[in-house]
């Protein structure tokens, strides 16, 4: 599956499993929050990704 902040392109080329990332410059990060908070955000995104991998529908 793909984690990306540029959804329209991913959709256009037909990617099936997509999760919206947290910005182009830190797709699974966040420079504006504390290190711990950031780790939490990253974990959440990856868990979303894992959920997407398990799905059978679009």
């Amino acid at each position: 599956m793909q984690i990306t902040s540029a959804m329209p392109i991913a959709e256009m080329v037909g990617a099936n499993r997509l999760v919206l990332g947290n910005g182009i410059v830190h797709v699974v990060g966040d420079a504006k929050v504390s290190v711990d908070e950031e780790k939490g955000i990253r974990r959440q995104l990856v868990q979303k990704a894992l959920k997407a991998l398990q799905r059978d529908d679009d």
Partner: protein
Amino acid sequence: MRAVHYLNQFFGGLGGEEKAGAPLEVHTGAAGPGKLLEQLLGSNAEIVTTLICGDNYAVENQQSIVSAVLEKVREANADLFVAGPCFQSGRYGMAAGSLCSAVQAKLGIPVIAGMAQENPGADLYRDTLFIIDSGDNAAKMRDVMNRMATLAKKLLAKEAVGLPKEEGYIPRGLIRDHFVEKTAAERLVEMVLAKVKDEPFESEMIPTAFAPVPMPPGVKDLQKAKLMLITDGGLVPKGNPDRIQSSAATRWGSYTIKDRADLRSEDYEISHGGYDPQFVRQDPNRLVPLDVMRELEQEGVIGELYDEFISTSGLANPLSNTRRMGREMAEKAKRLGIDAIILTST
């Protein structure tokens, strides 16, 4: 001029669908529609060998018939290789495309195929081969063979090949600029007037419809699954050992993360010109989430994280590169028994 012709079981006269499993046969001289082709190629042309193979056999034994055909074409000392026309027959078209492709690449002689635009062989091979658009009506054989023969003669004479409409081949998708009489302004207004009046018009560019990618079924048991991380954000080890280009990259690399709990900023650099790299430089896990994946691996949420992550740069990268690289990465993942991939993109 010596030519070799490839036909399937039906056009080769072996029989219908019941003969689709027939293995590759070698005939001296022209057979079936090849006789017409030979005529149209001219008096100094001869089809020295006709290769006939059942559609199913060809598809199921692709590797071996490619080698066998290459050998036969070499033996025949051929100047030209022709496959089909296949019309709408999909297995035939795929075989024809793959054989023409191999002959072109390995033997460097002109190759021509013929098939309908919708033939899956056309879709896969149109950008590297000249495939005459045969339509799906085999009754048009003479007309189709004529175009195949004409284009073949041009290729042999190394003459410039004209536009798809002129020569009758399926557009290969290569762009060339021409100077025309009318300015862009004139063409714009003319086109919009036709459109608004519901009259036919010809657009100068067709948007590519991306064929839908079939979705594989979801991972059944995540706790047993082997995952791999891939990124197109251009994260590479310091020194960029594989010299992955920052834009229009033609290469990708696979980098060890064995026994690492996370990615350290001093070990990596960024080869990508399309985003501000400072945040990922500070903490590469913001692009390739190794730290979190390791935790999830230790917690047993996923079975295993593969020992390497794959990386390239997606910036300004034409499909001609990325299609190939994607395929190569997928092949590697399949070989390693990877169950699922997380691709992180900038």
